[in-house]
């Protein structure tokens, strides 16, 4: 049943130009950044670093920044993907179809979530084609590449969970997108204030999504970071399920 709902969610992204435009924008902008990164590497970094010990290599200097940029772009675009999920169904009065069917609220939320997640996997797969093209010219560090892919998947998976929750709250897709962007940006910059971070005793630093992303992206896979993402996903999905359940009682 969850698979049926996920398939519907995934397909509907490609039934309008929206999914295609989104993929095109992501691919084009990242490709440009990718080329620029290669350019810098070839003209200024490689000549100076010949013979250095501990050289981060192509994977560290080109691939890791690419996934960093991808993270920023997803921060901007995930709200547009998730805004439709529940709030536009509500705005278009389609939601009663799912509510009236013998589906539990878990199934509705998880189905939609997995459909959106599948779309994220497509995005990550498309991005990964770029570093793989370097294989033609050089040797890649596949361990680091895998870490980058994992980092981006977990990042977008938690973005999507937050977005889905906000989409379940909102009556209009535009307000869902705006609020999701605000929430994600807040998570992103949470530990940028040095004073606040010091005083919070590391709590802000742990809550901030960027630190965990950077750790993973540079190849440092720790259970703390993995746990952080799983917690974010679980918390926001449960909030969405709860909200749909309680909304029947609301005014």
């Amino acid at each position, binding site marked *: *049943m969850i698979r*049926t709902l996920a398939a519907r969610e995934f397909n509907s992204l490609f*039934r309008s130009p929206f999914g295609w435009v989104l993929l095109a924008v992501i691919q084009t902008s990242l490709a440009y950044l990718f080329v620029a990164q290669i350019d810098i590497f070839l003209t200024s970094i490689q000549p100076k670093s010949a013979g250095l010990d501990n050289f981060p290599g192509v994977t560290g200097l080109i691939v890791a920044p690419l996934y960093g940029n991808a993270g920023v772009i997803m921060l901007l675009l995930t709200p547009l993907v998730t805004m439709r999920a529940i709030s536009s169904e509500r705005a278009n009065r*389609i939601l009663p179809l799912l*509510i009236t069917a*013998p*589906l*539990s609220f878990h199934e509705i939320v998880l189905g939609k979530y997995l459909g959106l997640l599948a779309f994220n996997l497509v995005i990550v797969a498309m991005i990964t084609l770029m570093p793989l093209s370097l294989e033609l010219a050089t040797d890649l560090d596949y361990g680091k590449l895998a870490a980058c892919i994992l980092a981006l998947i977990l990042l977008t998976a938690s973005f999507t969970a937050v977005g889905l929750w906000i989409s379940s709250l909102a009556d209009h897709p535009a307000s869902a997108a705006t609020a999701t962007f605000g929430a994600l940006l807040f998570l992103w910059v949470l530990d940028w204030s040095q004073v606040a971070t010091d005083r919070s005793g590391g709590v802000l630093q742990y809550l901030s999504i960027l630190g965990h992303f950077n750790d993973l992206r540079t190849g440092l896979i720790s259970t703390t970071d993995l746990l952080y993402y799983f917690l974010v996903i679980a918390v926001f999905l449960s909030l969405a399920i709860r909200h749909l359940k309680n909304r*029947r*009682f609301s005014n």
Partner: protein
Amino acid sequence: MAALIQIENVFRYFGNQCAVRGISFSVGANGVTGLLGPNGAGKSTILNMISGNLAPSSGRILINGIDIVRRPLDAKRFLGYLPDTPPVHDDSTVDEYLRFCAKIHRITPDRQNQCVQTTKQRCGLGEAGKRLIGNLSKGFRQRVGIAQAILHSPALIVLDEPSVGLDPIQIREMRELIRELGENNGVMLSSHILPEVQSTCTRTLIVHQGRLVLDTDTSGLEHDMAQSSLVMKTRLPVDLDRLRQVDGVDSIEALTGNSYRIFFRKPHNPSEQISEIVVGSDWGLLELCTEHGTIEELFMQLTESTPSLTDGAPA
């Protein structure tokens, strides 16, 4: 066996506004029950609660004896629901959409195709299977909405204003379909149009300002409209005092020209006597016809005379 729908003293508030005030009734396993009322009477709220999209503020709703709020999954197996706007996917074709509905209603894969085909035939969508729902006319979208509600042959079919947006031929087909469904299933529909309820429903519930003000067999509805009126047109002015003497006449209202509206109380229909008087006096009878009580008049009467049926007994 439990009643198909049992509603026990249900209230629903939206903020301070009370949309449904203490409604109770039950509906049996077959027949068509019409929920009749003016706009804003609380019909859609009631149907939304029966379908589990809204929970009552207090009171209970049981579908086949199962509480729709506490055990929604079990109760919804018996339900098919068409909300006031058909919940259709504009980006799918009719076939794709109905197949999706078949899946979420847990129809087994081997029966899905057959269910979709027969439902399309029943709803007059035979030729429309490959068309995109977003390109369909309003009437066809409405049919797709109904197809979605009856696809899985639910015991209870709830339709919110099913004939809105349909042309007269489609309305007739729709009524036919609803009557047919009512033979084996319980159907509950809402409408603000009296003739629609009269022509399709076996039982009529009238709601006004969130209260149930009448619960009757549809055939009894005419009798409840105690007051009716005649419209008369004559060539010459008439002596109103003479007509007021006639048995059953309540009052006479002079309209423009030599037209009059004569109110009378059933069961006395004074048409015969009035025509005799007018013809006998040589006033030149040009026109005399009965006006059926309008739903608005009925509401006026019901809301003035009946406080409310707080414990509406099932018919």
